[in-house]
């Protein structure tokens, strides 16, 4: 899995890193992700999940993606249930603590139909960071002695050449594609992220291709007026797709909170019958709508507006 430096360099060299427009549709962006690709997913749990892009990949019938995310929520259940992924690397996997242990995650992993590869949260972050830095590993001090590391032959224990202390080396993770949702970016892909960045900056620099979905596209002039607010540089970006409410039913910092009623309904539907419930959900919300706008319409304008009201009030007091 750990790529040689020659391989990393030649993959990057082949990319068109020039300043150029790369605005496209969800379908066009989905075509950049081949079956079997390794895919890093931005955001965390219910936050800035690149839901619109996941929605497009599931609709496109993509198969056998190897997915990696800091913490995985219902998007992981949907990736399993749709056959889009059978292998998810993450630190925590369930819809969310308030909804209990994921029935879908359990059904797939316990039957061997899906693999949940568990690394500590910091280990996932450092694997992306190593990838972003162009080094084959980073050292860290957790996981030692636990059964988490006992399950991970890719992590290595060493004695530090400087201090003699025991350390873990975690290997770089350089996904073929990163899916990242942002509040705004320009047509070249210079992206601004408000609030919690999670691991998205390291992920973007680690990946060999970045697909950005964005709440809105702004001018390059606006970006250049505050270059210290650019978090992902255009050079690293291959596709820009404008998708309002692109994380719904999850949240996007400062713009909308999660659609809790929708998520409660989803959880209840899964609880009643995991396999049938998730199938019906996919049919209704993923395969059924003709467009992202129709998907949003299905979520319901009232709940979208409520989520927007809650989301924009974060710094009101």
């Amino acid at each position, binding site marked *: 899995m750990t790529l040689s430096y020659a391989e990393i360099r030649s993959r990057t060299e082949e990319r068109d890193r020039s300043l150029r427009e790369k605005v496209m549709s969800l379908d066009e962006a989905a075509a950049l992700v081949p079956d079997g690709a390794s895919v890093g997913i931005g955001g965390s749990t219910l936050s800035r999940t690149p839901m619109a892009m996941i929605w497009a990949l599931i609709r496109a019938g993509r198969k056998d993606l190897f997915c990696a995310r800091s913490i995985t929520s219902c998007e992981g259940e949907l990736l399993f249930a749709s056959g889009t992924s059978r292998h998810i690397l993450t630190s925590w996997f369930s819809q969310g603590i308030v909804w209990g242990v994921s029935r879908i995650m359990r059904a797939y992993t316990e039957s061997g139909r899906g693999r949940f590869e568990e690394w*500590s*949260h910091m280990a996932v972050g450092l694997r992306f960071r190593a990838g972003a830095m162009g080094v084959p590993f980073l050292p860290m001090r957790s996981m030692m002695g636990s059964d988490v590391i006992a399950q991970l032959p890719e992590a290595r224990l060493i004695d530090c050449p400087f201090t003699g202390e025991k350390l873990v080396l975690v290997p770089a993770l350089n996904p073929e594609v990163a899916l990242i949702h942002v509040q705004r970016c320009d047509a070249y892909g210079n992206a601004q992220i408000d609030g919690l960045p999670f691991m998205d900056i390291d992920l973007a620099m680690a990946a060999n291709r970045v697909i950005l979905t964005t709440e809105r596209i702004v001018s390059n002039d606006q970006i250049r007026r505050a270059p210290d607010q650019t978090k992902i540089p255009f050079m690293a970006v291959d596709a820009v797709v404008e998708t309002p409410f692109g994380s719904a039913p999850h949240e996007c910092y400062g713009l909308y909170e999660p659609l809790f009623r929708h998520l409660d309904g989803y959880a209840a539907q899964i609880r009643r019958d995991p396999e049938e419930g998730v199938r019906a959900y996919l049919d209704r919300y993923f395969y059924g709508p003709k467009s992202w706008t129709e998907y949003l319409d299905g979520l319901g304008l009232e709940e979208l507006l409520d989520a927007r009201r809650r989301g924009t009030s974060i710094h009101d007091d």
Partner: protein
Amino acid sequence: MTISTADYTASELLAVMSARLLRDGQVVFAGVGIPLLAATLAQGLHAPGLTILFEGGVIGAFIEPGKLPPSTNEQRCTRRANMVLSSTDVLLLLQRGYVDVGFMGGAQIDQCGNLNSSLIGDRERPTTRLPGTGGGNDIASLTQMIVAMKHEKRRFVSRVDFVTSPGFLCGEESRREAGLTAGGMYRVVTDLGIFGFDEHSKRMQLLVLHPGTTADQVQANTGFELLVAADLEITDSPTERELTVLRRLDPDQLYTA
């Protein structure tokens, strides 16, 4: 008015008793659920200068009553925060040594304070796959820990099926020998009492009983033999003020049902 055990739920007791362990001026890395709630409760009571860190990437937040976040990764966690940063970087603060207390819940714990949130049964073919470590392993590996959890025999086992978050591993010096030279289990708070770990054997020891419980009752609900402190104390009941502030924080009983 005297508060009796009928006046609060087990979760409320847990939140109040663990909040009392936090001191003003400390830096606490809090997980979602009871830890988040108890840390916020401590801020509202005796520790206004408590600094709360969340693994979503937050330093020094003040959760708004009634707006508890569904995890530690949503914008509700950032309300009036001093700083928001990447989740990798906030976890690295544990490694750098900035955190006084790690504070999280537990699904299963053993007599050496190891926590399991990964799986029940065989590792290759588990009967139950659980949600996993999240930052739990990092927190437990790198700092002093307080764990808040319901006291049930099936949760307090001799040896966990899977060490997700390391306590003292096999006891004695095994944690240090494994390479974890900092931190370790400090306290386990349950709805029955408060537990520490013996200095040498690193085995769980009953330190304090909650009102209305006995040492025998605690042992009966524990799947291994508990050490019991010589000077066993009894906690004061939750006060009206503690319960009032707590209920204002979680009016929908998201975490205290």
